[in-house]
């Protein structure tokens, strides 16, 4: 069997998920790992939207907010199982992405960035202000997913940290598999083509507005699932999940690691999730560091860390 880039990426991810726990100094790091995977899922969606299709969203945290609060609200108000709440959140996010994206993506240019900025702010405002429903800025409890107890009945006894680490890791690998499938498929090729030249894409028959809309909806589902997993593992969620900073974080992680590469973007998520854990000063200066990372990457590593490194290695190999 030939090792395709797709298989290689999946093998690397699986190895990372399986092997890194052996090096954890304490149980706390399972939680950090799970956070990296949750961010990695959101960032994989950004790869599809920005890396493949060349479109920018500045409000993707809005979809993470919808996914997160779906897990808090749907079990209480609709009596849904939390797992079904994840699906409901994803469906609502997809529908909203469709409604926002449809009129916007017919236009040429950077309107999506502006529209999503507004969308993110709107979701964030609703979550902060509709206290009767969301309890406002203080956040709200999220029910237990229940899968860990189920596994325990089957004789698989995991700590809470271990469970979320492996569960989110598997979800990330699944998400990466889907994004990599898309990359080499007819639809993915059409996305990457319209990214290169819209006019040429249209003349070969690609319905550019519709393809961009598909990418936007798919990436919204990734962000939504990421928000749901965050809420479920914390058993708590605050409106920060939908905040502007979180949107910027997603884009920065993807751009830092390499927005055209699934593995690269996940690497970016890893670095920027780990930094504040290792360097406590980072938390204070987070906004500054994010800004600095963006500027430096754009100047020195336009393609992002991983693609630049791979290119250099390949250049030396020849």
């Amino acid at each position, binding site marked *: 069997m030939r090792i395709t880039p797709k298989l290689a990426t999946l093998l690397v991810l699986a190895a990372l998920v399986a092997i890194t726990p052996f090096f954890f100094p304490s149980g706390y790091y399972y939680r950090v790992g799970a956070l990296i995977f949750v961010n990695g899922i959101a960032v994989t969606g950004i790869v599809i939207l920005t890396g493949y299709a060349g479109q920018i969203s500045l409000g993707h945290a809005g979809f993470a907010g919808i996914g997160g609060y779906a897990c808090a609200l749907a079990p209480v108000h609709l009596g849904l199982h939390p797992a079904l709440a994840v699906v409901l959140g994803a469906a609502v996010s997809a529908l909203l992405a469709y409604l926002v994206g449809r009129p916007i993506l017919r236009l040429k240019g950077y309107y999506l960035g502006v529209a999503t900025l507004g969308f993110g702010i709107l979701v964030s405002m609703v979550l902060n202000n509709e206290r009767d429903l969301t309890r406002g800025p203080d956040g709200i409890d999220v029910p237990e997913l229940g899968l860990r107890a189920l596994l325990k009945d089957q004789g698989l006894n995991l700590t809470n940290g271990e469970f979320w680490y492996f569960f989110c890791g598997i979800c990330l690998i699944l998400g990466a598999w*889907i994004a990599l*499938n*898309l990359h*080499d*498929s*007819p*639809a*993915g*090729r*059409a996305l*990457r*083509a319209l*990214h*290169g*030249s819209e*006019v*040429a*894409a*249209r*003349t*070969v*028959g*690609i*319905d*550019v507005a519709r393809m961009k809309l*598909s990418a936007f909806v*798919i990436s919204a589902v990734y962000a939504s699932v990421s928000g749901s997993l965050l809420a479920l593992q914390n058993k708590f969620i605050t409106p920060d999940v939908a905040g502007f900073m979180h949107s910027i974080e997603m884009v920065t992680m993807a751009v830092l690691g390499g927005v*055209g590469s699934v593995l690269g973007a996940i690497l970016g998520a890893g670095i920027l999730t780990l930094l504040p854990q290792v360097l406590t000063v980072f938390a204070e200066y987070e906004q500054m560091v994010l800004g600095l990372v963006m500027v430096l990457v754009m100047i020195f590593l336009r393609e992002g860390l991983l693609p630049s490194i791979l290119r250099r290695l390949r250049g030396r190999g020849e």
Partner: protein
Amino acid sequence: MTRTDKETLLAVEGLGIAFGGLKAVNDVSFEVKPGEVVSIIGPNGAGKTTLFNMISGVYRPGSGRVRLGGEDVTGMAPHLLARRGMSRTFQNLQIFQSITVLENAVTGYHLSERGPILADLLSLPSSRRRARAAETGARDLLARVGLERAAEREAGNLSYGSLKRLEIARALALDPKVLLLDEPAAGCNAVETEEIDHLIAEVAASGVAILLVEHDMKMVMRISNHIVVLDHGERIAEGDPAMVSRDPAVIAAYLGADAEGIHADG
């Protein structure tokens, strides 16, 4: 060469467009039939590319009609025209730079390889089958334009002449009824030009209606069934190559070197 008596495939009727005050194309009409090569010639800035952009739906015409197979397609979006059998290349290369040469050619098969996006996301056998069929077709086309050995290279790294041929391969992948070629031989050496010349003749012989813009007069005179001459957006002459090359208005519009080119082969 005489024009065939087949049904008209592409009809342009009184087409015009203005940018600000400038009438870039004004009241231009002509017809193209299956298997014919109709050339549009004229000095720089005459409005040839603008005419192509209107026919292919990139610009919405200010006046006039475009008919494709009898259907009025004026101002129709390019991707819908592609579904009706229209395909084109660009004077200022429109290549998908950061993907491979092969993938560029495969995009030409978009209409035959596209399917439910869910199948693509899950890489279902149906999706892989569609992609494989398109890839096989694309490799054949690359061989036809002499690019089979560059298939796996990133398109942005190819020479200008190779990219010109890649655009032709991508346009042919649509299996078009009407093919619009905007200066396909520009920047190509003599050997490449002759290859493109043969390729166009071959495609026309298979029944495709070809509309050609080209500055290489030898090539134009050799392969055109019919020539339309534009100057300052107006049609100043029309006819078979021999007629056009003798036309005093055409010689006046061209003057100098190009006019000699016209005489040499007319």
